[in-house]
């Protein structure tokens, strides 16, 4: 199943099931969505429930919050994570806080979907990832979907959630054909053990999952049996799954596409230190993007984010440096 079809199916099923589910955003209607996620929905559910908006992110999320307060279940689509900066006041200062500030009288059953990450030569203003930013905000739930299965079940869960969910996608994943697994006991907050291993734990999420899987083939050839964990939920973090893996492997590597300084990995490392410091046999390795705005030139672009080759060489170097 295509990644974008999984998202489409989740939205379609929710809209069919529940009339209060609406979707709004730039080009979600007549155009079918910038990444074809909302394709076919407008003809099925009319303009009343599939709403094309002006290019104004603050109003997209602001309207969605209003709808949510009034009893709808809006899905707001932001075309690119970078644009969500314009909606930041609505997301952080309103969506995340209203339930608390109203003493629980108002709930915001809203999903804000947005793709982020480095695609292909979209340059600095269309290539960033803000998972660190959102996952540091109390009152928000932040989910990241790296695969069709989680995209489908995760988005369905998010739409039905009574609290605001930031649903992160990745631009390069939309056209990817992926395996779809039926799940009976889906838990959005559970990390996925993608591959069982014994020598070291590699934590990752979103598109980097595929770079890590590619790197793993090389690591296996060198006799390194890595356990790969996809975090799925970034807030809350499934530290339990992470800790039990580290307890077994004693070593941990985090691979993220976002900038290293203050990135998602920084928070994960901090939590690892708190929960399983005495299980570690080496310092945790962070493999992340360079601390620069993403360049336009393709060669430079690739040079500032992790690639399978870089993941392998950095792990080997780290192993050598630490005598493990």
């Amino acid at each position: 199943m295509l990644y974008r079809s999984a998202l489409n199916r989740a939205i379609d099923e929710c809209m069919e099931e529940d009339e209060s589910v609406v979707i709004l955003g730039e080009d979600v209607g007549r155009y079918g969505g910038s990444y074809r996620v909302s394709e076919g929905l407008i003809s099925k559910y009319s303009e009343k429930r599939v709403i094309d908006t002006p290019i104004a992110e603050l109003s997209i999320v602001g309207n969605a919050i209003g709808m949510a307060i009034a009893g709808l279940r809006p899905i707001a689509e932001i075309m690119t994570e970078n644009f969500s900066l314009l909606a930041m006041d609505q997301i952080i200062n309103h969506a995340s806080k209203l339930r608390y500030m109203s003493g629980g009288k108002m709930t915001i059953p809203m999903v804000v979907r947005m793709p982020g990450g480095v695609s292909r030569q979209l340059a600095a203003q269309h290539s960033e990832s803000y998972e660190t930013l959102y996952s540091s905000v109390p009152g928000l739930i932040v989910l990241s979907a790296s695969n069709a299965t989680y995209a489908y079940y995760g988005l369905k869960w998010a739409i039905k959630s009574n609290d605001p969910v930031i649903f992160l996608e990745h631009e390069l994943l939309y056209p990817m054909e992926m395996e779809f697994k039926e799940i009976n006991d889906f838990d959005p907050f559970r990390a996925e053990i993608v591959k069982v291993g014994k020598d070291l734990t590699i934590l990752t999420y979103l598109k980097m999952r595929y770079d890590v899987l590619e790197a793993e083939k090389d690591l296996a050839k060198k006799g390194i049996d890595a356990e790969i964990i996809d975090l799925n939920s970034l807030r809350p973090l499934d530290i339990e799954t992470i800790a039990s893996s580290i307890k077994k492997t004693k070593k941990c590597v985090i691979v993220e596409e976002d900038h290293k300084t203050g990135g998602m990995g920084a928070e994960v490392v901090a939590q690892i230190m708190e929960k399983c410091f005495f299980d570690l046999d080496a310092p945790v390795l962070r493999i992340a993007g360079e601390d620069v705005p993403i360049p336009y030139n393709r060669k430079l672009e690739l040079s500032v984010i992790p690639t399978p080759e870089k993941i392998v060489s950095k792990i080997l170097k780290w192993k050598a440096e630490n005598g493990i």
Partner: protein
Amino acid sequence: MEYKVVMPVLSDTMDKGKLTKWYVKEGQFVKEGDKIAEVESDKATMDIQTFKSGVVKKLLVKEGDEVPVKSVIAIIDTQAKEVKNEKLKVKSDKQIKNEKLKMENDERKKNNELKIENEENENNKKNFTFSTLHFTLPKGSASPAAKKLAAKHGINIEKLQKENKLQIPAHEEDIKEFILKKYFTPAALKLLKEYQIDENEFRLNHKITKEEILNYIENKNIPKTTPLTPNQKAVIKTVEGALSKPTYFIFNEIEVVKKEGIKLTAVLIKALALAMQKNPLTRSILKVDKLLTYPSSNISVAVARKDGLYMCVIKNAHKKTLQEINEWLKTIKTKRLTLEDLSGSTFGISNLGMFDVKRFTALINDKDVGIAAFGSLIDGKIKVTFTIDHRILNGVEAAKFANDFKTIIKEI
């Protein structure tokens, strides 16, 4: 060994249990069936008993605490023997110290209670047990995991590193290796590895010898693990492949005269090779929907070598003299085998005559059309069984081949 006492499920609706009272203390010896704690469920109050004897190593739950069912509440060391009062006293001193630490921790925890509660809600009420340190960390340069292990075994990392006996920085593997060397003799270590026994199965307080491990192996009936050699794997693959062939047997008896200085197998090979020349189908193999018939009598011979069982192929056996075949049989036993030595055959031979076997059946090797299995020479006669691949050779042709062979071997 550690026996873990868990919060029992006392009713079908019970998902948590409250530990109301401990009847035992850490360090205390308990016998199987002893009451160790009182537990309150949603319906009743009951006593928990231990199902194994040993020394209570750790009580993991405080009186008054509520914990989910099936979570571990106490650990009992089943290998520890009953300790004398003196030791108990020392332990309780330690306990007092721990309790003091615990109290301090509790206070700190209380201060953070609000925060932790918040966090717990966020974690979707996932239970996470915070482990409290019950040891002092050794000094020296080592990873946290290494220090934890060293502390458990009272290893002084700093001292060992000064004496150059331990790597700087030390990793968990280094400490493990040190512990193994400290408590096990080299011969014992070898056994541990061979039988894949966890070193923690032994009380690490004395030098453990080979005898102790052998004893353990015998008592627990532990199998020795030997990885398969490439040859064994190849044999398995071949014999499993043979099972997929539609075969039948032909039983026969031949008359042979033993020749001085010539192995009987050489005579059998020569006669078989000549019989093959008269029967082209025995020189054929199947290839998808074609039959390939070769001019040469190439015979695969089952050879038991030091490095395993091999089906060695003698080429052009019909053109070779008995002496040449005899020589080949000698060299093939020890020579370094190449792919050439193991391929290209169309029929096989297996001889167990030297082991006083009357008769047996053999499995067809690789792509061969059949195999002849020979028993012992008794009164100038040998019982032979042909296993034939019916896809290539029908009964009539096989019978003719068997009879040709019978006639030819008389004349050799």
